[in-house]
């Protein structure tokens, strides 16, 4: 575009200007609070003395908060519960999204628009509202789906009850991503497959799914990240049942430390540990997926 060198010089700074708003917002709302949390995680509150403390001051605690966090068995139980939840919510979300996308993409499917909207709709409902509504469905006294026969908050059942809310909240979004990828496939592909005598089933399995695999993988990554941040669903179901404790998953523990026990320093340390773990998980997952996709492409 730039025909003379002077114009080139003038536009050189332009890309920076374009990303500036995003950088500013990121700095103000992600980087700065993150840095502050890191600072807090090395501090601790101490009372000034006397019976009621006479006010408090903050002291440098070194790695003491991290030692406490890593030695906290309740946090690790929370991590295990989070992993147990993720172990079925992630595959369930992705597989259901793929299934719905493929079904909607079939030629003979009728009522596509309304079905698509219906499946997408739960995504538009805020997680807290969805959890409250599911809560009414689960509780025996208010349940229209057999809460008096099935204990939806039983020892094992509670995982599926919580996971169910999360899955329905995420399937719609992922379905749209995969469905869009399916619609983008050139029609000649299925036509030639059909001419070659492939059944609808074979077209789906051998042609469509392999071609939208990158979209499916991306959805998987999103879902893994969402599973690490599970909070709304169990936190909203907590007051309804004895089955969910205040430290049920790591984010609930962080919330309880910060706003229940007003110990923002422990909460900050736990947040830093969790962030580091999440970064490691997503980095490793992304690397594995990338190398797989490249292998298949090669």
């Amino acid at each position, binding site marked *: *575009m730039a025909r003379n060198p002077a*114009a080139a010089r*003038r*536009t050189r700074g*332009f890309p920076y*200007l*374009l990303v*500036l*708003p*995003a950088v*500013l*917002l990121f700095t*103000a*709302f992600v980087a700065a609070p993150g840095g502050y949390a890191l600072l807090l995680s090395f501090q*601790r*509150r*101490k*009372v000034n*003395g*006397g*019976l*009621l*403390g*006479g*006010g*408090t001051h903050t002291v440098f605690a070194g790695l003491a908060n991290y030692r406490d966090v890593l030695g906290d068995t309740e946090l690790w139980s929370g991590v295990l519960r989070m992993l147990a939840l993720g172990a079925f919510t992630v595959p369930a979300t992705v597989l259901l999204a793929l299934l719905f996308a493929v079904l909607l993409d079939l030629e003979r499917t009728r009522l596509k628009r309304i079905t698509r909207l219906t499946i997408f709709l739960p995504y538009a409902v805020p997680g807290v509202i969805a959890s409250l509504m599911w*809560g*009414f469905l689960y*509780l*025996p*006294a*208010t349940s229209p789906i057999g809460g008096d026969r099935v204990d939806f*908050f039983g*020892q094992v059942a509670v995982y599926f009850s919580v996971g169910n809310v999360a899955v329905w909240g995420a399937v719609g979004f992922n379905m749209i991503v995969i469905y869009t990828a399916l619609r983008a496939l050139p029609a000649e592909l299925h036509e030639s497959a059909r001419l070659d005598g492939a059944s609808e089933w074979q077209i789906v399995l051998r042609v469509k799914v392999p071609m939208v695999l990158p979209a499916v993988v991306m959805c998987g990554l999103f879902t893994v990240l969402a599973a690490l941040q599970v909070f709304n669903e169990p936190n909203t179901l907590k*007051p*309804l*049942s*004895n*089955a969910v*404790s*205040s*430290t049920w998953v790591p984010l609930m523990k962080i919330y*309880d430390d910060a*706003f*229940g*026990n*007003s110990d923002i320093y422990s909460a900050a340390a736990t947040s830093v540990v969790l962030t580091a773990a999440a970064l490691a998980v997503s980095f490793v997952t992304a690397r594995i997926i990338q190398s797989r996709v490249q292998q298949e492409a090669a």
Partner: protein
Amino acid sequence: MSVIPTGRRGAAAVALLAAGLLVTTAACGGGGSGKKSDASAPAGSKGKVTLTFWDWDPNIDKVVAKWNAGHPGIQVKLSNPAGGDQLVAKMITAHEARNGPDLAKVEYQSLPALVSKGVVADITAYTKDTVAKYDDATLKSTVFQGKVYGVPQDVAPLMLFYRADLFTRYGLSVPKTWDDFAADAKALRAKAPKAYLTNFDAADPGWFTGLAQQAGANWWSTSGDTWKVDIADAPTKKVAGYWQGLVDDGSVAKNPSFSPQWNKQMNDGTLLTWISGAWAPAQLGGIAPATKGKWAVAALPAWTAGDPATGIWGGSATTVTTDSAHPAEAAEFASWLNTDDAAVTEQVKQINVYPAATSGRSLPVLRSAPAFFPNQPDFYAEVKKVAPAARSFPMWGPDVTVTFTGYTDGFSKALQSGGSFTGALDAMQSATVADMKKLGFTVG
């Protein structure tokens, strides 16, 4: 290849940037505006002062309006950011940002924690006349080491609320002792297999704490600057053991209170009693609207027949924060709200509080029952009989939230997977002591 000329692109970028900055500044500026009292007027001056007041009582606005009408120089602006423990968390956060309200409603058990964090102000100098209007037992909740940290609003002795109609239908007599209560619970299960006398609530620690107080527990006590924590003491273990028995043989329900499930069961007659504070009538209207006029109140069952002791659940004080630029005016309002006869009468009418001030307990308004109890005209007479024998701990600890979280998690787990209640008490004890030591309190 873009076709937009460079100049236009630059303009677009500037517009975008401006919009971005606008969002940033708006987000930073929000929340702080209109919150603080008028700082230009020096404390104690006669200029117009506006005080902010955080309170979650339903209809408190009508009481505040009464003050505002009579005091053009000191206007009170009410807001309701949250209730109970959540309000405490918000007060602490706002204090960190030097942005707290002038006044806030605080439940007695949260007061020591707020004092220790420096959130609540010492108002001894402004309340010399006010404290004379309270008895010593009530003042113990807001006066620590000779300093006044709040003006008591209400006291909430633990009582037994029961469905008078269903007690008659099933031929149950109102239990006088805990043995009677257990017998009633079993008798009811035999007569009406779908109904329960009550539910064991692991979600709200307040009622269990009250039961422990009735039995004589002293979870926190002090000598000099040293704390003694004794949550798993013998009286508390007795209470825990008693309820463990009722839960284990299926005599009582196990679901948490204040859930949709519980609301429905309270409304449809599945649950026949509620062990609650004297403030219950104001809540029952929302919880079980269909049962108006069917409830009655009685003294809490006793451990030995004739012992009038009971515990407390809640009860609050109006506090002035250390962020307030007008502590004198704020204290004046707090005193008026809780000791002026007209103000207290309005509170009884609007919020169903049982007044903390001594004179408030003889007000004519207490001769008629709360709106939800039209069948029991002597409602407040019953409360008045019980209130003097309500005992709290010698002192609430400075980290009650830790203890209370321990209760919710420990007892819920025990109900869910059949663990022992006394084990949960031990866990509460060790978590509380560990937290106090971490904060630097001296624990003996």
